[in-house]
């Protein structure tokens, strides 16, 4: 866990009282909506279909139990009893009243959480691997660097008025759980031949209307230079980025138009001016941040405790363990993923009761720590293996033990037309129907790893481009229509999916997905061949044929 310092607390508290005053002036008419809009957006407050939406940042996806309880409290007291975890390590509340927002912010500030820079053309929440600090084989905890960047960029004037929003993601593992290749800047922690820590830097990834996979701009930037290097990228972007056209304003467009070689030369020039400056990071600074991350006092535990051996006889437990429990870097411990994708439920939603109960479980079984991943699931990062059976039982009682992590019903879906003012079509009901269609866990297991991602418009908040099966809602003659892509992925081999043909109607989407899955099951050479392998081997053609043969 990270311990915030006095500067953070003061900053956050000042922000709350400032916003309280702004809301008061807005409600009295002293501020017009035009004047107020930018102020509310700076505090994560959007206007959506039914109400104001309030987006709260969860830096690098790490929450302490008192913070999760505070989120539960906000859900219960100021909203309708639930919150929605998003694909960017944020949580959104959908039914907030403007008049009560300052109180909600104040209650969150007490536990060090806030909504700064969760919207607007600035540096957004720096995201990271939800298994940071506990994943086996990790170079080092990527949150140390996420935190460094967070501190440097929060309310930094140069990063506050960018041409467009800006997103950085960091991973330190071979397997990328942070989706760094679809971010404006993706950072991969590595070690050079001398054993020094540094970064492979990628730039220009992003989804939305014009999706791009990020390109490597530099193979190694030393840790001490990372701030100056990021700043150099941002300066080039600030200088050349399109401010005249919102659709061309993201850095991905600039990188695409200049080409990565020219773009990197510009960055290199800029970097040479600023690298040996106050931006060079002292070891002390990093050590200070490192020392603020505390790790549990792990016990020496057996690899295979009796409790686990006994529970293995229960097929329900085993079904859950197989996909929810992952190896931990410390022997005798596990990382447990908590699916927020129950059958028939909206992906990513958690009720206030679930959040409170999860906080209790995290205190009991995970040293008071919870993680939030971009797949809209939660995780408990330090569970002793002997506690797994008891934890599973407790999660099951809460409706949080759906054994579907990484399976076909572990769907990412944006809020779509049920909540979002930009939407063209609904997303959540499609996800709900698919979780019902594939509710049979044996079938889901037979299918194996298969990610479905759904967005309700081209902004791609639901990451449809990088879904193994991607579903994009569009509008045609006043009706919801869904375009299906195949073959996308967001991991270390990130790729954009290929459109398989004309869009289909709301009622047909689940049938189409069933067709694709049946085609896959018939086409795969052996059970271990995953959906993505089959797509790689055969392309989208056989799936396309199957889907459109009868339509």
């Amino acid at each position, binding site marked *: 866990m990270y311990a915030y310092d006095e500067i953070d607390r003061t900053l956050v508290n000042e922000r709350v009282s400032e916003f309280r005053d702004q809301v008061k002036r*807005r*409600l*009295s*008419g002293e501020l*017009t*909506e035009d004047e107020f809009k930018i102020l509310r957006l700076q505090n994560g407050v959007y*206007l959506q*279909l*039914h*109400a*104001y939406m309030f987006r709260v940042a969860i830096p690098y996806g790490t929450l302490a139990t008192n913070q999760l309880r505070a989120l539960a409290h906000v859900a219960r007291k100021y909203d*309708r009893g*639930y919150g929605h975890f998003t694909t960017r390590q944020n949580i959104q509340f959908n*039914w*907030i*009243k*403007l*008049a009560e927002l300052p109180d909600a912010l104040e209650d969150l500030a007490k536990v060090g959480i806030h909504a700064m820079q969760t919207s607007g053309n600035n540096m957004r929440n720096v995201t990271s691997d939800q298994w940071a600090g506990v994943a086996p084989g990790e170079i080092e905890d990527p949150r140390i660097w996420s935190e460094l960047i967070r501190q440097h960029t929060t309310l930094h004037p140069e990063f506050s008025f960018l041409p467009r929003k800006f997103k950085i993601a960091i991973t330190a593992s071979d397997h990328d759980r942070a989706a760094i290749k679809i971010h404006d800047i993706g950072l991969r922690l590595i070690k050079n031949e001398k054993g020094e820590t540094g970064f492979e830097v990628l730039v220009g990834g992003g989804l939305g209307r014009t999706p791009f996979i990020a390109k490597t701009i530099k193979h190694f930037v030393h840790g001490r230079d990372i701030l100056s290097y990021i700043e150099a990228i941002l300066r080039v972007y600030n200088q050349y980025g399109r401010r005249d056209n919102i659709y061309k304003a993201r850095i991905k467009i600039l990188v695409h138009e200049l080409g990565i070689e020219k773009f990197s030369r510009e960055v290199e020039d800029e970097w040479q001016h600023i690298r040996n400056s106050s931006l060079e990071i002292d070891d002390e600074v990093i050590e200070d941040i490192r020392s603020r991350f505390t790790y549990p006092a792990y016990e020496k535990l057996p690899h295979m405790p009796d409790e686990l051996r006994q529970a293995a006889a229960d097929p329900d437990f085993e079904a859950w363990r197989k996909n929810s429990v992952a190896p931990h870097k410390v022997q005798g411990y596990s990382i447990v993923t908590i699916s927020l994708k129950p059958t*028939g439920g*909206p992906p990513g939603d958690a009720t206030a009761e679930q959040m409170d109960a999860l906080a209790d479980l995290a205190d009991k079984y995970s040293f008071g720590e919870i993680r939030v991943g971009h797949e809209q699931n939660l995780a408990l990062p330090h569970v002793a293996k002997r506690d797994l059976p008891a934890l599973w039982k407790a999660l099951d009682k809460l409706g949080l033990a759906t054994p579907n992590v990484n399976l076909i019903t572990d769907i990412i879906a944006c809020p779509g*037309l*049920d*909540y979002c*003012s*930009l*939407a063209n079509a*609904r997303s*959540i*009901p499609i996800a*709900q129907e698919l979780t019902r269609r594939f509710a049979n866990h044996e079938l889901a297991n037979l299918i194996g790893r298969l990610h479905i991602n759904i967005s309700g418009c081209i902004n791609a908040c639901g990451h449809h481009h990088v879904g193994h099966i991607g579903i994009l809602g569009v509008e045609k003659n*006043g009706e*919801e229509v869904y375009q299906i892509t195949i073959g996308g992925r967001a991991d270390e081999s990130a790729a954009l999916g290929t459109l398989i043909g004309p869009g289909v109607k709301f009622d047909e989407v689940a049938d189409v997905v069933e067709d694709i899955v049946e085609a896959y099951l018939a086409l795969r050479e052996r059970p271990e061949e995953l959906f993505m392998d089959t797509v790689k081997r055969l392309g989208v053609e056989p799936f396309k044929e199957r889907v459109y043969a009868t339509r």
Partner: protein
Amino acid sequence: MTSPLEQKKIKIAGPSIVTANRTWDGIVVYRTTAKSWSADLSEAAIVRNSDEAKALLAESIADDVGAIGPYIAPVQVGADGKIEPGNLREQIRRTGVTIGQSAQA
């Protein structure tokens, strides 16, 4: 969403209303004939041509403290005068989410 300014160019195709969200709590409201806002669609002022629509929108925008983000939306008016939302988006705004979560406050 189409901004009010862009909407000024829009020609309406049938009976329409002006809708927005109430400033202090964000709930969906409709501009009424009494030049105020109501959460009840049946009280909405109906406009039938673009001049009327523009005028209603202008008046709504002027009431900046009452409600935010006013825009013109289509409705259907039954033979009995009953007003229904004219598209799915407005239907969802009126009755809440379609995903089985409570729509009431």
